[in-house]
């Protein structure tokens, strides 16, 4: 069947009960109820500690065919996901659904467990490296399901994603299960993605290398959510968890894109006192922070709140008083982790508060402006951030579609050419964010405004940025590089991209 943005979606697929085609960013009105774990009772003064990961797996009653989850706050420094899965595999448990908030290069280590049938299904935000290639190759019995951060929170809360056991790496954990992410050698900052898993999984195991006396505070994940605690030597490699301060690019092309993006904001009509702002972590969007900061200082404008994965440029603006507060779902560098620990105006939030479309209002709904990166954009303004130009999974849906849907002004930045490859195409390989949510596409050679936004087009007339039609932008790329041949794809569907509301926005087909 064809969904509302013209993508061919399968009617049914092995392992999937029913598929609803995407019908528009806010078309679906939910009518079901929240799900939740079975009730339980803990006896006073009980000891939640178990002696090993193995013992925790046994205590949870993990069985063939269950669903397990992890958070990705430790990014490429994560030891938990690989270690726990190896322990599970040793027990001979098979047919698991793996549902982490995302996967990184470090998780290439689980490939043998997919090949031997320990893991037969994956639901996550994205994947990279060899694992991304493997998922694209169709080796998984059930095609991979890609969800946005907000979509995952929604799926967990409504029961679409029922987690049997959540294994949560905990940088600091007390002996009754209160957790935070800001203390200890493996501090990661916000625990935003893990909060939903903790609240809705049937069983929750906290794994820590920093057990502290009760009560630990501040509390990110409360003792009321945690069943078992395992103490290990190390839950992650601090160098992989967070980089040093992320600094602004000196690549002139990225700076030019950033400059155009910041001029678009300045002239858009949304750049005014108390505007709210989200910044992606890509090079050009980070660099835009610098120009926006200069414009805010020059025009004596301060913002209300900042959102996102948080990076140093944003923290600097908070400290300068350019924003009142930051809502933080994940931290990317050490200064951000220090900031959320020390600055009371730097607030931790859950993935549901961040972006879940089916609660009483996530923070993205209050966003004025967001700058997002893209792998590819097409002439309908659809954005791909999940597959590369050869159709292989190598990215993550992340909060892309969530922030784009919520913000009044969603700016997508991308180089017009990567090497020889045009990034503005007739059709993107895979749609993650629908064109209706994208207002402006900014490249180093031109800026295109969504025809749905004539108001923006008018406002940007005197901005000094080279405004053109998106088709002209595409033509500019083709004039330089030539028209690319479309990559050959098989009919075999290896993945589904779920829109944040649970409908299917696109299918990923195996490249030939």
């Amino acid at each position, binding site marked *: 069947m064809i969904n509302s943005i013209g993508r061919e979606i399968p009617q049914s697929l092995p392992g999937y009960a029913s598929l609803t085609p995407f019908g528009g960013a806010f078309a679906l009105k939910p009518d079901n109820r929240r799900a939740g774990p079975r009730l339980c009772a803990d006896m006073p003064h009980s000891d939640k500690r178990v002696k090993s990961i193995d013992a925790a797996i046994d205590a949870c009653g993990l069985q063939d065919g269950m669903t397990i989850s992890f958070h990705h706050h430790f990014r490429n420094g994560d030891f938990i996901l690989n270690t726990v899965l190896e322990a599970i595999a040793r027990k001979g448990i098979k047919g698991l659904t793996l549902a982490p908030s995302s996967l990184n290069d470090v998780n290439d280590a689980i490939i043998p467990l997919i090949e031997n049938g320990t893991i037969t299904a994956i639901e996550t935000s994205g994947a990279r490296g060899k694992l991304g290639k493997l998922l694209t190759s169709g080796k998984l019995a059930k095609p991979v399901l890609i969800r946005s951060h907000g979509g995952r929170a929604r799926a967990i809360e409504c029961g679409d994603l029922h987690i049997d056991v959540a294994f949560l790496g905990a940088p600091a954990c007390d002996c009754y299960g209160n957790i935070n992410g800001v203390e200890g050698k493996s501090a990661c900052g916000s625990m935003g993605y893990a909060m939903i898993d903790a609240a809705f999984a049937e069983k929750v195991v906290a794994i820590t290398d920093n057990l502290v006396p009760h009560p630990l505070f501040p509390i990110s994940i409360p003792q009321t959510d945690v069943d078992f605690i395992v103490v290990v030597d190390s839950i992650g490699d601090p160098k992989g968890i967070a980089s040093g301060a992320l600094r602004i690019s000196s690549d002139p092309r990225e700076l030019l894109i950033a400059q155009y993006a910041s001029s678009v904001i300045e002239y858009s009509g949304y750049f005014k006192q108390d505007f709210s702002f989200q910044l992606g972590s890509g090079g050009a969007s980070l660099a835009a922070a610098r120009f926006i900061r200069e414009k805010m200082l020059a025009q004596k404008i301060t913002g209300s709140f900042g959102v996102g994965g948080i990076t140093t440029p944003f923290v600097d603006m908070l400290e300068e008083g350019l924003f009142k507060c930051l809502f933080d779902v994940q931290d990317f560098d050490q200064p951000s982790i220090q900031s959320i620990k020390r600055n009371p105006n730097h607030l931790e939030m859950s993935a549901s508060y961040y972006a879940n479309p089916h609660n009483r209002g996530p923070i993205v709904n209050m966003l004025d402006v967001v700058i997002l990166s893209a792998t590819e954009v097409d002439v309908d303004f659809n954005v791909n951030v999940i597959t590369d130009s*050869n159709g292989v999974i190598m990215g993550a849906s992340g909060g892309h579609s969530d922030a784009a849907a919520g913000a009044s002004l969603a700016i997508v930045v991308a180089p017009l050419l990567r*090497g*020889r490859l045009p990034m503005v195409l007739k059709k993107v390989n895979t749609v993650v964010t629908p064109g209706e949510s994208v207002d402006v596409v900014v490249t180093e050679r031109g800026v295109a405004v969504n025809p749905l936004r004539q108001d923006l087009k008018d406002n940007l007339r005197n901005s000094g940025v080279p405004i053109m039609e998106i088709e002209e932008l595409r033509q500019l790329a083709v004039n*330089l*590089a*030539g028209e*690319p*041949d479309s990559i*050959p794809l098989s009919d075999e569907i290896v993945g589904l991209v779920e829109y944040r509301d649970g409908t299917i926005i696109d299918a990923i087909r195996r*490249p030939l």
Partner: protein
Amino acid sequence: MSAKLLRAAQAGTVESNDIMISVSPAEPGSGCNVTIVSPVLKQYGRQIKAAIEAGVKENGIEDIIIHANDKGALDCTIKARLNVAILRAVSEEEVMTR
């Protein structure tokens, strides 16, 4: 004009946006034999090959072995590197004033 390669030669680099083209003489009558390695083979393999074959013809070469290690070069870069590789392979002096 028909030119003949006197030796193997190459031009270009393996930096991004460049292409390294290696040419060597081939038996008379063996034609133009091209191999291409490229990260954009699926999207541009056909056009890279066409650009190389057209460039060989323009240079009046009939028999040649070409290996192209492409890093996402535009057609104009491919043409430039090919022309220089051929120039270096056909010139009388090996150590010449380039």
